[in-house]
């Protein structure tokens, strides 16, 4: 016979009453002041075990008995759930916990680096062109509000560049229906927005030494459009937000987490992959139209020199930099130039 001590709550009022359980064979006697109830052992359920919480028995009369000690009750009463018993075993010791941490880390890293980018591509393809255009124009509008100013390039110059780009976009069906925009933004730059919008700054037009160099920069941006990078980034960011909520949603609100730094670091990682992909697409595009990727290498080198002259080195920014190291990109461009000849 085994004796267990506990407190019984009858379920009628929140009052506890000390009881003793006498377990003998298949019969259990619940002894309290003045009364003894007998139950078959099989009809008493033990809650699914969780480490560090009181063990509770439920008797058929609707009462709950909180046991004083987490003794050998699990052998005596059938706890609910085989899965729970396994989970409890894992949760009780440090070794499985460490294994769980390792598994989570590897699995989540795989999702972030491989699965999300893989999933984002087909989804990005499903997005209607009208929707993309709307997204692009919205972004352009907010740029206009914040930093962009109307172009001051002469009309003829803009027409000439449009003409050059028109020729460069011939026989490129997947980026047909593009839109060229000129803006003044204080720095030589070009970028691509969803809906095949290409924005060129006045400063870039002045910065390049030839049409080939301009086309090299634009080819890179067209590479972004072709691979739907802007949309894919948004989709991948949404995926990261969901993952962050899964991992840490209990601790800090989703709203707080939304601005979290790790997401930014992952963004930088995604961006680097996108930049490399856009470069490759650009080299192929240039080659199709008889422009040497050397022009790309030349303009990149001048970009780098220009930036170095203007800004002191900032190691954090270099780590966060959205572009692969310039030297690497120049090397690849020269490689592409070599092989296209």
């Amino acid at each position, binding site marked *: 016979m085994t004796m267990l001590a506990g407190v019984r*709550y009858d*379920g009628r*009022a*929140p*009052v*506890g009453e000390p009881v003793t359980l006498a377990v003998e064979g298949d019969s259990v006697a619940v002894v309290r002041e003045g009364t003894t109830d007998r139950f078959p052992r099989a009809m008493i359920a033990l809650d*699914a075990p*969780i*480490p*560090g*919480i*009181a063990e509770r028995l439920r008797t058929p009369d609707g009462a*709950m008995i909180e046991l004083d000690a987490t003794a050998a009750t699990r052998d005596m009463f059938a706890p609910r759930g085989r899965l729970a018993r396994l*989970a409890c075993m*894992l*949760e*009780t010791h440090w070794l499985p*916990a460490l294994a*769980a*941490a390792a*598994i*989570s880390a590897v*699995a*989540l890293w795989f999702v972030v680096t491989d699965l999300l980018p893989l999933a984002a591509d087909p*989804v990005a393809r*499903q*997005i209607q062109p009208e*929707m993309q255009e*709307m*997204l692009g124009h*919205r*972004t352009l509008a907010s740029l206009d509000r914040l*930093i962009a100013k109307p172009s001051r390039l002469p009309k003829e110059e803009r027409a000439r560049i449009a003409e050059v780009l028109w020729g460069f976009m011939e026989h490129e069906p997947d980026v047909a229906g593009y839109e060229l925009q000129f803006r003044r*933004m204080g*720095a*030589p*730059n070009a970028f691509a*927005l969803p809906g095949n919008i290409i924005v060129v700054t006045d400063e870039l037009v002045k910065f390049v030494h030839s049409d080939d160099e301009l086309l090299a920069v634009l080819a890179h941006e067209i590479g972004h459009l072709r691979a739907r990078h802007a*949309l894919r980034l*948004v*989709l991948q960011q*949404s995926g990261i937000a969901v993952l962050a909520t899964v991992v*840490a949603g*209990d*601790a*800090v609100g989703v709203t*707080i987490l939304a*601005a*979290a*730094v*790790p997401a930014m670091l992952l963004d930088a990682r995604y961006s680097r992959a996108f930049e490399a992909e856009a470069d490759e697409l650009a080299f192929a595009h240039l080659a199709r139209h008889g422009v040497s990727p050397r022009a790309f290498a030349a303009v990149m080198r001048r*970009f*780098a020199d220009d*930036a170095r002259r203007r800004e*002191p080195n900032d190691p954090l*920014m270099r780590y966060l*930099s*959205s*572009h692969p190291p*310039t030297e690497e990109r120049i090397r690849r461009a020269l490689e592409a130039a070599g092989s296209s000849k």
Partner: protein
Amino acid sequence: MSGIDTDAADAAADADTAAAVARDPTRAEVQAAAIVDGDAPAAPGSADHLHPFQFTGRTSVYFRIWIVSLALSVLTLGIYSAWGKVRKKRYLFDHTRVDGSGFEFRGSPAAILRGRIIALVLFGGIALGGHVMIELRLALIAVLILLTPWIAVASARFNARNTFYRNVGFDFDGTLRESIKVFLGFGAIALVTLGLAYPWFRARRARFIAGRHRFGATPFTSDVETGDFVLMYLFSGLALVACVGLFFGAMVIAAVMGGRAEPDAGPPLPAFYAVIVLLYGSYLVIFAFMRARTQNLIANGTVIGPLRLRSTLRTPWLAWLYLTNVLAVIGSIGLATPWAVVRLARYRARTLVLVAAAPLGTLMSAPRGSASATAAEVSDLFDVDVAL
């Protein structure tokens, strides 16, 4: 592109907030509706007995429960997460103690899984549908708004009915009809008045959710004042306006300075970082203020028969907890989550006191076989915890 994204997220967040708010007071009251037994220290000059709440959970144990849940969830593609959630919740409830007894959570993982699938279809549909097609997104948002009253009632019921203290259960008696009146009716008034009536709506909502709970046979009553909510939102609104002003100032600085930098390679300026950090910090403080005030108002306005709650959450301390939690969670790539959960639970328990004017004997469980007890069985499908 971020415009669309934000809109969809806002709508989803709104519905989520509805569910969360429906849950939140529940949690507060759940933790609160403890029943007094035996002799407790009497407050000087009054017949009330004070029973401070206590959180006795340990970070090391909770960490293991959490990490096992995470790993198994990832390995089962999220299915285990419902089981994991129940285990985490049971641990946290058990260690939320008042007068020596913990709470029990008896929710079924299957119901939680069902709720998560519903949430995933709804919110996922909006998030993806919003990117694909505008009409679809609008339709889904409309569906979500219409569903809000149901989500609020279903979640409150699910959480209340699965919470027990000393084997006596909580319940939520709010009906769908009332919920429609509050969320769609009063909500529409808040909308029509361009948010001026929002604090009033918020008070009505709190009164509905908190006031329709029950512990055993004892109904809760909620007497939160609209005026208190007006003051809270007024104060938060002013602070928010100041923050937005700060942000636009920062944008102007960034535009002026950024105009001279080469956007692709130029390092942002330390001043810009400083402004962002400051902005984020003030946002955190406002957030903590609203959280603290809301919970204090709702808890202090709740009466459960002879019992009252006294919640004394303080903004600076809560903001400090949020800040350090966020930093720790980010710095540890999420590993500090259980630590953050435990210290938040500790603080919330430490600031909550049950004030009892009568001993335990006056509270009883609901009679068995009563209408509401039967309804619990019938509406099993109705009871889902819709939350991600």
